[in-house]
C-alpha cells in the first residue's frame, strides 16, 4: 500500500505530496477515508466543516497547531503531549463523529 519500503522514499513522498499527519490535519482526513470510505476531496471538506475551517487551513501548520491544541487531538509539539495516543484518538472520534475501534475497546475496559 501507499509509499513503500525502499530507503528514504517515504520521507520524500510525505514532504512532496502528503498532508503532514498530526503536523496538520492529515491524520483526520485519513480517519475519514478509513471509516467512511470518503474520497480525498470529500474527506477534506468533512474535516474542515467539523473544525469550522476552510480547506486551506487544513495544511496550515500555524492554524492547525492551535486547533489541535484547543481540541486535545495531539500534535508534534511537546506542550500538547498530554493529549496524545488514546486520549487524542478519543477526542478525534468525538470531534469527527466516527467510531474508532481501539477507542471503543479502551472505553469498555475503562468502565468495566
Amino acid at each position, binding site marked *: *500500500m*501507499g509509499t513503500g519500503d525502499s530507503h528514504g522514499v*517515504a520521507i520524500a513522498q510525505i514532504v512532496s*505530496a502528503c498532508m503532514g499527519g498530526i503536523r496538520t490535519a*492529515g491524520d483526520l482526513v485519513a480517519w475519514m477515508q478509513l471509516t467512511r470510505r470518503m*474520497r*480525498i476531496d470529500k474527506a477534506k471538506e468533512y474535516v474542515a466543516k467539523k473544525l469550522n475551517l476552510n480547506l486551506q487551513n487544513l495544511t496550515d501548520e500555524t492554524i492547525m497547531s492551535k486547533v489541535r491544541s484547543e481540541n486535545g487531538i495531539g500534535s508534534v509539539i511537546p506542550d500538547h503531549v498530554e493529549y496524545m*495516543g*488514546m486520549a487524542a484518538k478519543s477526542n478525534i472520534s468525538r470531534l469527527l463523529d466516527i467510531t474508532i475501534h481501539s477507542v471503543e475497546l479502551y472505553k469498555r475496559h475503562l468502565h468495566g
Partner: protein
Amino acid sequence: MKDIVVSRGDGNLIEFSEDELYKDIVKGSENAAQKGKIDGLSKAEINHLVDIFSQPGKTVSVDPGKEVVVSDDGAGLMASWGRPSAGHAIPISDHQSILMYERVYCGDTCGLGFPDYSYKPVKSAIGYARSHYKTISMLTTIPLIYGSQPNMGMYYHPTGPIPTPFDYFTKYEFEKGFQLQEEAAQIMRDDIYYVAEQLYEVGCEAINLDTTASAGDAEFWGALQVVEDIKSRLPDMPVEMGMAGEEVIGMHGKLTYQGERLAGMYPHQQVEMAAKAGVDIFGVAVNSDTGRSTPYNLARAVTFTKAAAEQSSIPVHANSGMGVGGMPMTLLPPIGCSTRCAKALVEIGKADGL
C-alpha cells in the same frame, strides 16, 4: 540536446532530450491504454508529465491544496527493521520507530507488521502481534494499520500443506490443479481471518491485505472472500487492499467473483471487485520495467491509476514503493524520482493517497 536527467527502472540515471522524454511518456501511456483497454493520457496530461520531469529542481511537489494522505507497507518500521529488502537496522524498537514516523516524519497513517510479512507466519506469532499492536496503539494518534501479505504461494509445498498445482498442470491434470489452488485459497482465507480477529480483540484500527494476488486469481478470490468475512463479523474494522501488480494473473483462470472473471483484471476492474467485497481503501499497483525509463514507467502507472480513480467509489491509493508506481526497482531510489512519481500520481493519476 540531452539535458533532462531521469532514472531508469533499475535506478541508473540516463539523459533525455525533451523530444525523447515526450516520446517515452506517450509510449508508456499507450502501453497501459492498450493493455487495460482504457483511455490514454490526454495531450494536456502528457505535457504536464513532461513538465514534471523537465523541472530543474532536485525535487518537485504537488500544488498547495492538492495534498493527499499517505499509507504504507512498512515505511514506519524502516528505521528499526533490518532485512535484505529494506530497513536501516538502527537499534531502536518498533515502538520508537513508529512514534518517530508519526511525530518527526509526520505520516498520516502508519503500518505495523511482522518482519516475515505474510499472514501465515503471523498466525504462528499471534501473541507477539497482539501485544505489539496493543502496546503501540495506546500511544499513536494517527491510524495504526496492521499489514501483511496474503502470499498464497506459501501454502504450497515445500513451505505449506498443499501440493504444488503446477506439477499437475504439467501432467495435464488441470482439474486437480484448479482444486489445489482453491484449497490453498481457503486455508489462506482462514489464516487471514484468524489474524484479523485476534488483532480486533486488542483494538485493531484497520487491517491491510498488502500485495494481494501475488499468486494469481485464486489468491485474489480468497482475499475478496476474507474481506467479506471481516466486514460482516468484525464491526468498525476498516480494510485496505493493495495489489501485487496491474494485472491479475490467471494461474487458475476460471474463478469469478460476483459473476466477474478475476483473471486478467486491471486496476479499474480490480477496484470495483474490492469495493463490492467491502474494502475501504484500495491500493493500485503498477509494476515497473527495469529496462525502461522512469518517464515510461510512470506514464503507465499514471494511466492505470487515473482509470481506477475515475471508476472507483472508494479512496484509491497509488502504491509507490520499490518497483511500483513508476518507481525504480532499487533499494535507493533517487529523491527526485520519488517526488516526481508522487506528484504525477496525485495530480494526473487523481489518487486519493499514496
